[in-house]
C-alpha cells in the first residue's frame, strides 16, 4: 500500500482499495470520487454504513460536490449496508455480486457511461455471518468490474481493521488509493485534501515538522488556485508553524486564494500575527471536526 495512487488516476475497470485514517479524510476522498464520477457521465453508487443517506449527502455537498440535479435524475444513488452487503443481517458473496452486476447493467441501460461504486466497508468490522467470504468477494469484484468496465472503490479504515485483514484485502484489489501523505505518526498527520483541494493537518505540530508542511504547501500552491488549509483537527501549533503558513500566504500569486480553517486558539494566533489582514486570505474558526 506504500505506493498509493491518487483519485484522478482511477479508470473504468479499476477495483481500488481506499484506506483512510479518519472520517474526515474518508469523506474528502469519497467526495473527489463522486465528483469525478458524476463529471465523467457515470452513475455513482455510494454504499453508506455508519452515516445515514441524508448525512452522507450533506457531507458531500458541504465539500462542494453539487448533488441536487444528480440525485433528482438518478445519476447519484446512495444505498445502505442493510440493502446491499447485509440483507437479512448476513453476508454472502453471490448475492452482493449479483446485485452489483444488476446495477451495472441498469446504469448502461439508462444511458450512463458506466457505474462507479464506492462502498464503506466498516460493516466488516462487526461480527456478521458470512464475513469469511470477504476475500472471495473482493476477488470476484475485481473480475466483475474488469469485465464490465465499471469502477469499484472499497473504503477500509486503516486504524480499525487489523493488519492481516488489510493486507489480505489489499492483495485482492488491483489499485491502492490513499491521500498523499507528507507526514504521519502518532502525533501528526499532514496529507493532501482532495475536495475541497488543499492540505489537511491534524494532531499537533511544532518547528520540528516545518519541513513536511512547507513541502505540502508548496506542492498545493503549484496545483491549486484556491488552497484550502484544513487545520480543524489540529490541536496545537507553535509560532514557527504559524510562520510557515504566513509565508505561504505571503507568496500567493495575484490569482490565488487561501482559506484557513482552524480551531479557536490557532485563530487567535493568526489574528495576532496579521494573517487575516493579508489580501486573498480568509481565516475561518470552527471547533468542530
Amino acid at each position, binding site marked *: 500500500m506504500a505506493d498509493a495512487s491518487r483519485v484522478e488516476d482511477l479508470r473504468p475497470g479499476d477495483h481500488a482499495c481506499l484506506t483512510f485514517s479518519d472520517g474526515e479524510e474518508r469523506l474528502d476522498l469519497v467526495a473527489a470520487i463522486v465528483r469525478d464520477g458524476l463529471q465523467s457521465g457515470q452513475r455513482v453508487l455510494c454504499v453508506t454504513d455508519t452515516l445515514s443517506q441524508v448525512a452522507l449527502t450533506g457531507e458531500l455537498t458541504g465539500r462542494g460536490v453539487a448533488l441536487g440535479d444528480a440525485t433528482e435524475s438518478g445519476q447519484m444513488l446512495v444505498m445502505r449496508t442493510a440493502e446491499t452487503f447485509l440483507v437479512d443481517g448476513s453476508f454472502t458473496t453471490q448475492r452482493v455480486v449479483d446485485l452489483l452486476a444488476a446495477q451495472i447493467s441498469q446504469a448502461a441501460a439508462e444511458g450512463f457511461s458506466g457505474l462507479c461504486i464506492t462502498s464503506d466497508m466498516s460493516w466488516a468490522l462487526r461480527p456478521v455471518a458470512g464475513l469469511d467470504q470477504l476475500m472471495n468477494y473482493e476477488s470476484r469484484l475485481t473480475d466483475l468490474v474488469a469485465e464490465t468496465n465499471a469502477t469499484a472503490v472499497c473504503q477500509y479504515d486503516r486504524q480499525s481493521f487489523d493488519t492481516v485483514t488489510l493486507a489480505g484485502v489489499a492483495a485482492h484489489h488491483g489499485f491502492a488509493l490513499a491521500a498523499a501523505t507528507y507526514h504521519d505518526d502518532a*502525533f501528526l498527520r499532514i496529507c493532501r485534501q482532495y475536495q475541497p483541494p488543499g492540505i489537511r493537518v491534524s494532531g*499537533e505540530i*511544532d*518547528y*520540528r515538522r516545518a519541513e513536511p508542511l512547507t513541502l505540502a504547501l508548496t506542492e498545493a500552491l503549484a496545483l491549486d488556485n484556491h488552497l484550502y488549509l484544513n487545520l480543524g483537527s489540529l490541536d*496545537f501549533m*507553535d*509560532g*514557527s508553524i*504559524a*510562520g510557515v503558513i*504566513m*509565508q505561504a*500566504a*505571503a*507568496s500567493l500569486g495575484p490569482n490565488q486564494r487561501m482559506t484557513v480553517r482552524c480551531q*479557536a*486558539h490557532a485563530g*487567535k*494566533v493568526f*489574528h*495576532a*500575527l*496579521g*494573517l487575516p489582514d*493579508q489580501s486573498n486570505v480568509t481565516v475561518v474558526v470552527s471547533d468542530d471536526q
Partner: protein
Amino acid sequence: MTNSGRDDHRILDSSNASGSSGASGSSGANGSSGARGSSGAAELELVSLDFEEHNLHGLRQTVTAHAATVLTDDRIDDMALIAVELASNAIRHGGGRGRLRLWTTADAIYCQVTDDGPGFPDSKYPAARRPEPSASGGRGLWLVLHFSDAITVDNDVDGGATVTAMIATGDRTSPSKP
C-alpha cells in the same frame, strides 16, 4: 526568586502588545512586581522540570493541566503556547535544554524558563515588533510577548538566560471568588 547572581534584568510590561489577551486592566503587573512576582505575596510552586527537545509534548500537557486550575480556557492555551515557545527557544538557541518553573501568586501565574545558552544581547527581549508576513522567523518570542501580561529577562553572570512570563488571573483570594 532573588536577584543575586544576575547582572541585569529588565521588566517589559507587554500590555500594549497584547491587544486581544483580555486580562489587561486587571492590574496584574503592578510596577514593583513585574513578571518576577517578587512582591512577597504567597507563592505556590506548581511545576519545576528539566526539559530537552523530546520532552516538549509532555511539557505542554503539564503546563496546560496546571494552568487550567487558575486560568480560563482561552488563556490556558495562551500559557501553553508561552511555555512551548520559551522552552523551544532554550532548546534551539540556549544550549539544547533548560528548566521550566510554573508558580502562582494571589493574582497571577508565572512561567519561567532558564537555559545555559549565550543569553539575550544586552538583556533585551528580542521581539518587540511584530514580524512581517514574509519574515522567516521571530514569531515565537513575539507571541510570548503578545500573549503574556508582563515579561522579565535576566542574563546570568555565569552565562545563560532566564525569561519569566506572567499572566494575570485577577485576585483569586477575594471572597467573591472562592
